[in-house]
């Protein structure tokens, strides 16, 4: 097992709901896997129809597991191929390449309490939080906003006594975010992972309730979504590529064989930050400051696109 990538094998696969599939992975050669902490994710190379996809999924196995990794993948209706590949193509026994695990959403060790809010499949990082002894010992609470029918599908990963409440979109069952955030003990850390609308409403409610920024953490999922097609010129490589409407700038760069470091592919980690030489970026990341975005000298190619027909990158 070399240092830059992991060779994995699918050892179990099961549909846990019509749109959710659980995969269990072990290393292809039987060697122990790198241990991970609560909140870690792995970036997978997924076989697609016509092209490969690289998607990051949170690990839902107990922290520290060396024998297997577990992921749960939601089939996205407007899938560009990644989640469809997991649902349609991957079978038990298939080999799969992945990057070493990374963690951009670890629980804060000095917290006096952990308050978690998940939207739908955004529950996945918290499934590992709830299996972390120190998180449980500190005190924690998970609120899940999901479809009423999906309340029980995550039960196999939830410890029996885990403090979890489920909420869904029906009278008397919605999560009152403002009320929840209004009275929390000093030193509580808030974590939110869900669709962008939920993340935004929780972050706004936390700010309005006077939470310090340092005690609020969020993980976004999904690529920024598609957009208009445009041309990307890679100055140093002397290459040019047409970025399709349903493809990210990073995927287009990888397609023509230019190596670009990346980690989360969701605009959060900052690893793929690239100097922008010409053109105006449409920033969709959560990494660059507003000042940096306004300055227009940097772009995160994993999620951001172009406002005009052409971008020139220092690649």
């Amino acid at each position, binding site marked *: 097992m070399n240092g830059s990538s992991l060779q994995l094998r699918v050892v179990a696969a099961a549909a846990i709901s019509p749109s959710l599939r659980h995969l269990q992975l072990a290393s292809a050669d039987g060697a122990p896997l790198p241990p991970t902490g609560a909140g870690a994710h792995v970036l997978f190379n997924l076989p697609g129809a016509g092209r490969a996809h690289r998607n990051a999924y949170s690990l839902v196995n107990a922290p520290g597991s060396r024998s297997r990794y577990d992921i749960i993948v939601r089939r996205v209706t407007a899938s560009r191929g990644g989640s469809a590949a997991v649902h349609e193509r991957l079978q038990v026994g298939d080999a799969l390449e992945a990057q070493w695990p990374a963690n951009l959403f670890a629980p804060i060790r*000095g917290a*006096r309490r952990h308050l978690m809010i998940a939207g739908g499949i955004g529950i996945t990082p918290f499934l590992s939080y709830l299996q972390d002894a120190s998180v449980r010992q500190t005190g924690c609470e998970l609120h899940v906003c999901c479809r009423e029918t999906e309340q029980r599908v995550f039960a196999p990963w939830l410890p029996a006594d885990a403090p979890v409440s489920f909420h869904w979109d029906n009278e008397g069952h919605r999560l009152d975010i403002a009320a929840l955030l209004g*009275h*929390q*003990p*000093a*030193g*509580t850390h808030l974590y939110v992972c869900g669709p962008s609308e939920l993340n935004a409403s929780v972050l706004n409610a936390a*700010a*309005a*309730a*006077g*939470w*310090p920024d*340092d*005690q609020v953490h969020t993980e976004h999922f999904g690529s920024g979504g598609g957009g208009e097609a445009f041309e990307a010129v890679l100055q140093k490589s002397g290459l040019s590529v047409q970025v399709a409407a349903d493809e990210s700038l990073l995927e287009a760069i990888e397609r023509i064989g230019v190596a670009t470091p990346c980690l989360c592919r969701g605009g959060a980690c900052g690893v793929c930050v690239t100097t922008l030489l010409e053109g105006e970026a449409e920033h969709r990341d959560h990494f660059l400051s507003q000042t940096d975005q306004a300055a227009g000298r940097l772009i995160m190619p994993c999620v951001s696109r172009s406002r005009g027909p052409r971008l020139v990158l220092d690649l």
Partner: protein
Amino acid sequence: MKLKPSEVTSRPVYEPLRADPNAARHWLILEAGSMDADLLAALGAAFAPVVQRLQVYWIGPEAPTTALGSLAVLPGVVALSQVLAQAQPLTVNDRLCVQGTEPFVWRVAALAAQAGLPLSQVQLAHAGSQRRRVWCTHCHGFTEGVTTNVVDCAGCGRHLLVRDHFSRRHGAFMGVMVDAEQPGFRPAMQEVFP
């Protein structure tokens, strides 16, 4: 007295205190000997938006009249523990703001942490003397009120070079034996933290 900038990244950097209009209760803790009229006027303006939910504690002798309204006088930092105990339960939207010398503000921060207020809910600002609390790497003892580059350790008597490396847990700067390499070779003692 302005603090000198440092290349050492553990050295805290202080910003002027600010009220947080979205937060709930604010406590403002001021060290009597470090404040002057200009600072108090600036604090009066900064905390005006939250004056309805602000309590100001003046640590030291008799309080002056300020734009901050009535000040509660406390004889020393220890009495603050009582204040925080009475304010329980502390919530995530409470804020503690402290201004004074570095040994003072970090002592208050430590008391606040004991009461359950983490540093992310506490703002510290420097005022007054630059004097330092020094932690000896040899005997682990503290030397208080240090204003010189080299100091005799109050614990073990070694001559300590006062470094810019700061411990938030101890609220103190690191002191290392100045003539450990060349016994007897010591730089002249100078007042550098007036």
